[in-house]
């Protein structure tokens, strides 16, 4: 054997390796080809499916394609398919290629054996040389040699005697370089195992000793490696192995710091509990700061410090990676910011908090642990919408505190949320969502009302999803889509990383390590665990909200593998709501310049004309026909008698219609969007678009205004819709709005804001805008004169205490400087006249600045015809 082996010189081996590399390359290409084929198959399959479905179902399934410009949609298609492809298609392709690779490898191996006389070409049986070369067992000497080559015990155990012999012969005989990092990595794994065992046993001394060894060996190794790297070498060695080692070292340090802190925390809590008795109720479970021992505080600080260290390392690595990319500096910066907010935040905040909780839970009595486990199970069972609602409600306090709001001052969190609702100052969707979600979860109400609220919330949250309506041009649109794809991938990467971490540290799982239902790690965010263990949590799915597809063209459907339990749309209970035969056809009218009520009347008349026997129409149509038009206008949100801006505002050409299934909707000609108002099952989604004060009263009224006159200046292509009570055919009633009242069309996306916040100046004529600007300048001059320093400092400031909201609510006291007093008074005056509040900052949106609020309020005052009242 030795004689034969000597024939294999190093060059020959390298040729063999090159050949193998070629085979692998070809196989990879083949795999890619197969993947493309699988993609094409999947696309065809989906197309075939789509053709079998009604048009609206297809539209709903392919929202991205509807809204995209044709070219972009085409470009995006393969990516979307990649995300959506069915597992079996992939698996099939993968299996075929793997079989091909295996077959090729076997053929190559056979050629090799034949070439070197290890196999008889005729009989295809091993020759004596081959048989003799295969050891029967792994001797102690072989095991030692393998260990010297960097193979750990576990890996050595998995090798067959033949494989072991081959490794020893080839690596040793030809003195092939053994990568030092391989050896270190193996050893580090052993250290990790030892350290975890010591942690489990609670052996502090042993843990410290192991940690010291790790520090000594690996941190030094890294430093030592860093030195020679500075020497000029033709090919600079990749620093990756050292980085990986450092990461591993950091992970161990983090685990260690967490465990030390958790152990001391548990001891402290156990001691405290012994003597606390009823006091824990007094404290509501919270530990007063002064009671926490200094040692425990130090351990927590140490833990946080290590987490920071870990986060910094992640950040630096990413920064280095991006520097080597082809991205522009701006894009690199943006990418780094996203990485920080996604991956780093998840790793060192979310994951660490979850792991820490799991450790803390070990202290709880078995019963409490069991309930906590069930509580987490319950959370896991909730669908995505409910999780968003709960998270948003629980984050209300964060939203408030992030923007510097004082919950206590508002009388608690509920009052805060209620206040936000009542005042309607939630300036962003999340802001509104927080208040509404809190209300939905905590406030007593009827099941019917709760269901309506739920629908409203679902719509609200759906609007938060990706929406290209704000994309100003095609390029921006494409960029957004690109970011979207990247974000998806990043999430998958994050998820994979967390899952791996969870898999390796399953014993940290909260509740599960002590409860009966072992097997599911709980040291990651519940929704991520859910994604990994869908079968263990049968889901009571809530029916999906009907969303007109064109309203939210790019609402993302989470990838199948990410949201396994939320994918299948619940079937409509056909027994309760039998599918209507399409005996009723679409009925549509244009919005009347005489008002919303007239428009409703017009639709009624048309339906009545086309379908004298209304009993055959869908239930929602019948109900519409039997409801008083004014009440209908109120129900649909077209008319709000309690608001100064009582009337709906739409452009001429917008339409109002029932489809054949009995869905009532309106089409906004400006945005090109359809908005569902009443579903076939009678569910109402009120109009939330722009309203205006049609009677210029500035106050709410119970009686719809009776008369309007048409003014010559009224723009011909647009009008608002006052809610006139106008029986069809009644003469003498002419309705329109003056040019002053005829706001220009709302811009796309603005309707996402609360209607009373919308005052972009778009509704004003150029003359009015000039007047607003003049008033703004005059007032600032009046307030601050030549002393502009103060105003310069506060006008555009986003600092927590200098935003418009904070300034407006500042208490005026004697010692307050004059400039501040003047500004506070002015902001309050604007509020009194216009009813507007400054927009508070939320978790994701900055608070409104003083200048922004003043401009908005002045514009509103101009719209109301009250500009003179805010002119100082």
């Amino acid at each position, binding site marked *: 054997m030795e004689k034969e082996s000597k024939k294999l010189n190093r060059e020959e081996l390298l040729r063999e390796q090159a050949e193998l590399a070629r085979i692998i390359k070809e196989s990879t290409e083949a795999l890619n080809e197969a993947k493309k084929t699988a993609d094409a198959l999947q696309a065809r399959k989906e197309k075939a499916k789509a053709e079998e479905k009604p048009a609206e179902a297809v539209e709903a399934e392919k929202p991205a394609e509807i809204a995209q410009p044709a070219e972009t949609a085409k470009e995006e298609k393969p990516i979307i398919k990649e995300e959506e492809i069915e597992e079996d298609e992939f698996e099939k392709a993968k299996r075929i290629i793997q079989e091909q690779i295996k077959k090729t490898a076997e053929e190559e191996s056979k050629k090799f054996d034949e070439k070197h006389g290890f196999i008889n070409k005729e009989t295809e049986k091993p020759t004596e040389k081959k048989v003799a070369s295969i050891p029967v067992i792994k001797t102690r000497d072989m095991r030692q040699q393998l260990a010297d080559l960097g193979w750990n015990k576990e890996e050595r155990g998995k090798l067959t005697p033949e494989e072991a012999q081959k490794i020893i012969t080839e690596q040793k005989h030809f003195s092939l370089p053994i990568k030092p990092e391989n050896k270190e990595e193996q050893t580090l794994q052993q250290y990790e195992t030892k350290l975890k065992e010591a942690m489990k046993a609670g052996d502090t001394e042993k843990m410290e000793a192991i940690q010291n060894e790790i520090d000594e060996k690996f941190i030094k190794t890294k430093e030592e490696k860093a030195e020679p790297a500075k020497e000029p070498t033709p090919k600079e060695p990749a620093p990756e192995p050292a980085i990986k080692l450092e990461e591993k070292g950091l992970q161990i340090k983090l685990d260690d710091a967490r465990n030390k802190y958790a152990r001391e925390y548990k001891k402290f809590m156990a001691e405290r509990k012994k003597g606390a008795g009823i006091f824990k109720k007094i404290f*509501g479970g919270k530990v007063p700061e002064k009671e926490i021992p200094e040692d425990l505080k130090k351990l927590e600080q140490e833990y946080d410090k290590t987490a*920071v260290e870990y986060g910094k390392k992640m950040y630096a690595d990413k920064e280095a990676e991006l520097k080597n990319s082809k991205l522009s500096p701006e894009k690199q910066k943006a990418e780094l910011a996203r990485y920080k907010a996604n991956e780093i935040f*998840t790793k060192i905040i979310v994951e660490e908090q979850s792991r820490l909780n799991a450790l803390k839970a070990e202290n*709880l009595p078995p019963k409490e642990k069991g309930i906590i486990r*069930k509580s987490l199970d319950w959370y896991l069972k909730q669908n995505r919408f409910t999780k968003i609602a709960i*998270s948003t409600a*629980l984050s209300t306090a*964060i939203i408030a505190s992030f923007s510097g709001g004082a919950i206590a001052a508002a009388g608690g969190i509920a009052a805060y949320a209620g206040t936000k609702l009542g005042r309607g100052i939630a300036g962003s969707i999340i802001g509104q969502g927080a208040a509404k979600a809190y209300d939905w979860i905590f406030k007593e109400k009827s099941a019917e009302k709760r269901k309506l609220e739920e629908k409203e919330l679902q719509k609200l949250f759906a609007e938060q999803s990706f929406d290209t309506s704000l994309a100003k041009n095609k390029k921006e649109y494409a960029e957004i889509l690109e970011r979207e794809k990247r974000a998806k991938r990043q999430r998958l990467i994050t998820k994979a990383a967390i899952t791996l971490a969870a898999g390796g540290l399953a014993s940290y799982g909260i509740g599960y390590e002590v409860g009966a239902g072992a097997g599911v790690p709980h040291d990651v965010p519940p929704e991520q665990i859910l994604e990994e263990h869908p079968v263990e949590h049968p889901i009571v799915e809530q029916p999906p909200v009907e969303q007109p597809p064109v309203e939210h063209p790019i609402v993302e459907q989470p990838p199948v593998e990410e949201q396994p339990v939320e994918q299948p749309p619940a079937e409509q209970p056909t027994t309760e709501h039998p599918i209507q035969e399409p005996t009723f056809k679409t009925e549509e009218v244009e919005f009347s310049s005489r008002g919303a009520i007239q428009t409703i009347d017009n639709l009624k008349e048309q339906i009545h004309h086309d379908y004298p026997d209304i009993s055959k129409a869908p239930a929602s149509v019948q109900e519409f026909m039997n409801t008083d038009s004014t009440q209908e206008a109120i129900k649909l949100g077209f008319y709000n008698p309690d608001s100064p801006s009582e009337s709906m505002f739409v452009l001429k050409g917008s339409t109002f219609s029932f489809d054949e299934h009995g869905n009532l909707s309106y089409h906004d000609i400006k945005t090109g969007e359809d908005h569902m108002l009443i579903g076939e099952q009678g569910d109402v989604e009120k109009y939330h678009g722009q309203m205006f004060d049609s009677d210029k009263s500035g106050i709410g009224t119970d009686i719809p205004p009776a008369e309007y006159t048409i003014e010559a200046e009224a723009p011909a292509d647009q009008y608002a819709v006052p809610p006139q009570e106008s029986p069809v055919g009644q003469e003498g009633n002419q309705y329109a709005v003056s040019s002053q009242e005829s706001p220009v069309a709302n811009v796309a996306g603005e309707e996402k804001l609360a209607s009373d916040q919308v005052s972009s100046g778009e509704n004003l004529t150029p003359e009015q805008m000039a007047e607003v600007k003049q008033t703004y300048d005059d007032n600032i001059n009046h307030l601050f004169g030549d002393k502009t320093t103060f105003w310069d400092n506060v006008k555009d400031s986003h600092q927590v205490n200098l935003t418009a909201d904070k300034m407006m609510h500042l208490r005026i006291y004697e010692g307050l400087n004059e400039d501040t007093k003047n500004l506070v008074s002015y902001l309050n005056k604007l509020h009194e006249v216009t009813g507007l509040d400054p927009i508070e*900052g939320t978790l994701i949106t900055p608070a409104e600045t003083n200048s922004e609020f003043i401009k908005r309020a002045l514009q509103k005052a101009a719209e109301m015809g009250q500009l003179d009242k805010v002119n100082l």
Partner: protein
Amino acid sequence: MNPIQKNIIEILELDKLLPEEQEEFIIRTGAVIYQNVLMRAMETMSEKDQDDFEKILDNNGSPQEIFGFLKDKVPDFEKIIAEEAEKFKIKTSDIMSQIGN
């Protein structure tokens, strides 16, 4: 400005995230706060309340039932939420502000 008091929006540049990523952020944040709140709530509940709570969980209660029960039975439940949210905010601001700035 003290980094701890620095607005989380600035620290994490949340306004630059995609709406969907912002939503993910909220969900993750909420999941942690939910855990933290539960841990504290459990400590303050009487045995009987724990039994009742367990029954609601076993019956897969609605969010309103779950949170309604906690609000009724856990003293200062809303305060606990606010405190835990605040604690989370401080911890996040403290740690994240030291990274990459």
